[in-house]
């Protein structure tokens, strides 16, 4: 009996503080889980956006890097946190799009287990090759990869990485099967691409732009509808004559499922404000980032994006037969 009373009292207490918390949220620092190592593209975007959101919310957003298993370790942990708005996460194309196909034992469902907050920024994917690769444009390149098949070496930064997923996607679009060479991270992969050890890779603009500008590797196309101001000379895949390969590594903020709509709205408002801030925009654009506009910024738009991404990646990756048990 005593126990029951205590439990009831504790429950009431929680309910009261819960209600208070919603009213004047946030009252203490917010933890943003970034499921990748500090310094990577997702981490950098989280920190740039988070910094401005902190000003708007009046509480610091603390980035916590929980890396592992292609980002699913951190997202699994954050998805199980209290849905009180004090734990949010930066998910991305891999954790909320490709993960269900790559990890059959995944502990969360990207389409159901989250309260989407909003899209932060995307980083376009480029098709790059070693600088003496014998093709001058994308058409010639695609032709070469198709003819030479597994004689061509494609580098990627490890199973589940953006370069891995987009590389598989690219191969399936052009219907070729290059030999895949796995690296532990983008750095070593780029190193061997510059050293002419491997032939090509597909990766995010942040990682490859400086090398393209420096002439140590060459770019065939950027997989976005429009050219990037960072690399104005690189044609889009469509311009270069390849249909069906348009992909960006998007990053978006999610809260655990059950987070109240008021809190989600506060977070989304702060995010939108950050994306409209001139300084924040400039920093994201300098990295080659693509900032979502108007309608793409809402929680509903993000939910739709996750649904379509899971539907897009699952067949592509399952067909390639790559999965983690």
């Amino acid at each position, binding site marked *: 009996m005593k126990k029951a009373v205590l439990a009831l009292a504790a429950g009431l207490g929680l309910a009261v503080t819960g209600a208070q918390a919603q009213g004047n949220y946030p009252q203490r620092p917010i933890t943003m889980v970034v499921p990748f*190592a*500090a*310094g*990577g593209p997702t*981490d*950098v975007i989280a*920190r*740039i956006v988070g*910094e401005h959101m902190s000003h708007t919310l009046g509480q610091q957003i603390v*980035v*916590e*890097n*929980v*890396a*592992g*298993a292609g980002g699913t*370790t951190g997202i*699994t942990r954050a998805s199980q946190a209290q849905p009180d708005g004090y734990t949010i996460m930066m998910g991305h194309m891999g954790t909320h799009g490709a993960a269900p196909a*790559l990890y059959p034992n995944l502990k969360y469902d990207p389409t159901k287990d989250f309260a989407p907050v909003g899209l932060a920024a995307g980083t376009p994917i480029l098709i790059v090759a070693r600088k003496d690769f014998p093709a001058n444009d994308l058409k010639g390149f695609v032709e070469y990869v198709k003819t030479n098949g597994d004689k061509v*070496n494609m580098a990627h930064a*490890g*199973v*589940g990485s953006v370069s891995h997923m987009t590389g598989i996607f690219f191969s399936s679009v052009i219907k070729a099967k290059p*030999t*895949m*060479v*796995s*690296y*532990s*991270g983008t*750095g*070593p992969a*780029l*190193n*061997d691409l*510059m*050293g002419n*050890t*491997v032939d090509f890779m597909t990766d995010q603009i*942040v990682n490859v*732009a*400086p*090398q393209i*500008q*420096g*002439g*140590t590797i060459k770019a065939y196309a950027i997989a976005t509808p429009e050219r990037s101001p960072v690399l104005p000379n690189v044609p889009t895949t469509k311009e270069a004559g390849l249909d069906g390969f348009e992909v960006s590594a998007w990053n978006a903020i999610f809260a655990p499922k059950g987070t109240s709509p008021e809190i989600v709205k506060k977070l989304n408002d702060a995010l939108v404000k950050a994306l409209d801030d001139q300084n924040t925009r400039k*920093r994201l654009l*300098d*990295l080659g980032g693509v900032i979502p506009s108007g309608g793409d910024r809402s929680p509903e738009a993000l939910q739709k994006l996750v649904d379509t991404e899971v539907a897009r990646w699952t067949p592509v990756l399952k067909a390639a037969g*790559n*999965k*983690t*048990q």
Partner: protein
Amino acid sequence: MGDLISNLSHGFGVALSLQNLGLAFLGCLVGTLIGVLPGVGPIATIAMLLPITFGLDPVGALIMLAGIYYGAQYGGSTTAILVNIPGEATSVVTTLDGHQMARQGRAGVALGIAAIGSFFAGTVATIVIAALGAPLTGLALIFGPAEYFALMVMGLVFAVVLARGSILKAVAMILLGVLLSTVGTDLETGQERMTFGLPFLSDGIDFAVLAMGVFGVAEILRNLDHTETRDVVRQAIGRLLPNRDDFKQAAPSVLRGTFIGAILGILPGNGAVLGPFASYTVEKKIAKDPSRFGRGAIEGVAGPESANNAGAQTSFIPLLTLGIPPNAVMALMVGAMTIHGIVPGPQVMTRNPDLFWGMIASMWIGNLMLLIINLPLVGMWVRLLKVPYHLMFPAILMFCCIGIYSINSLPTDVMFIGFFGIVGYLLIRFGFEPAPLLLGFVLGKLLEENLRRALILSRGSLSTFVDRPISAGLLVIAMILLALALLPSIRKGRDEVFTE
């Protein structure tokens, strides 16, 4: 040459501004303190301090972060010498003779020679980066997977030489280390290996966890076991700084260590890790009396410590000239640069000369500051050994736990330190040494990855390792080293059969 001097003076102009000097000092100080806390490595610290640098200009921010990096290298050696806990892979070797020196009451000498050797190595490495950085970049690019595999094979041979006692036991420990490194997700297929379905093993075992367990916790268990030995450390303090004889003995080792470390540091994929091991191997091989090694030989501290610092510094070359981070700390530096709007690449040198030359100049200034910070601290660290052990070991354990938790925020990491501590204690009791195990562990992953990568690229042909001149050369050196290491023991085996 004239260019070099004008560039360097430009760099010093940037680095000597009051703000940048202050930031370099702050970084070095924080780095030293962090390095002394077991477990809290430079990676965790730089990640935690990244947001603080938002308000600074990029050059100042990077100077501070770089200061933390070398400060932590200095600090890491301090714990290796005093309490036998290597803060990082590169200070594993320092525990071998450094901690023995401390046990003999020569902790001050060991710390002093480590600081002075590191300063010398840092000075030379700074000049190497400034003068030869750009041309040396090519070296990083000719090292493909086959060359890297051969280098790792050579590294494993070093591990055999490291061993104090039985070669057979050393080989067993290396193999155990390699085996432990295969735990986790397979790089090519994404399948989990030897994880027993436990999610926290899917990314493998963390180096810091293993090192803290088999060195730190195991050492504490062993000390609690033998009351007498720890009193020796506590009572005999001895001289605080090296004297002329010490310098005479250590100077050639410092020179050799600097050279070895500087070259290995340039290689991509964490080649710097091999520096201290290679230097120790060389010192032990050319010493008149190799049996002193592992029992407090000053050369065994001076050489590896210089190699360690030289490598830490030259590993900035691939970052500054190519924009390619060779290890996890450098990857964080890339992150710090991108956050500040400088995307590192081949043009950093021409596009951001302030940053490039300013950082190089600040490296030397940072090294000087570390010497100034560390030499007076030697006395304090040594006095720390006087703290009664029953107060000291709970503190060490607590710092280990906090440190390891701060890296990945995983409670399982903390439990694993305890597990590896017990394993390490048993190994010590049965006469197995932990150092070859750690080297096997560090090299195992690189060995496997590069072997598979090289074979994929050669479409399965093993001749790729012999056809490529660099890889063939390295393999030949490895074989000669192995023969040299085994010969005496074979001879000894004939003389005193069954003594072991």
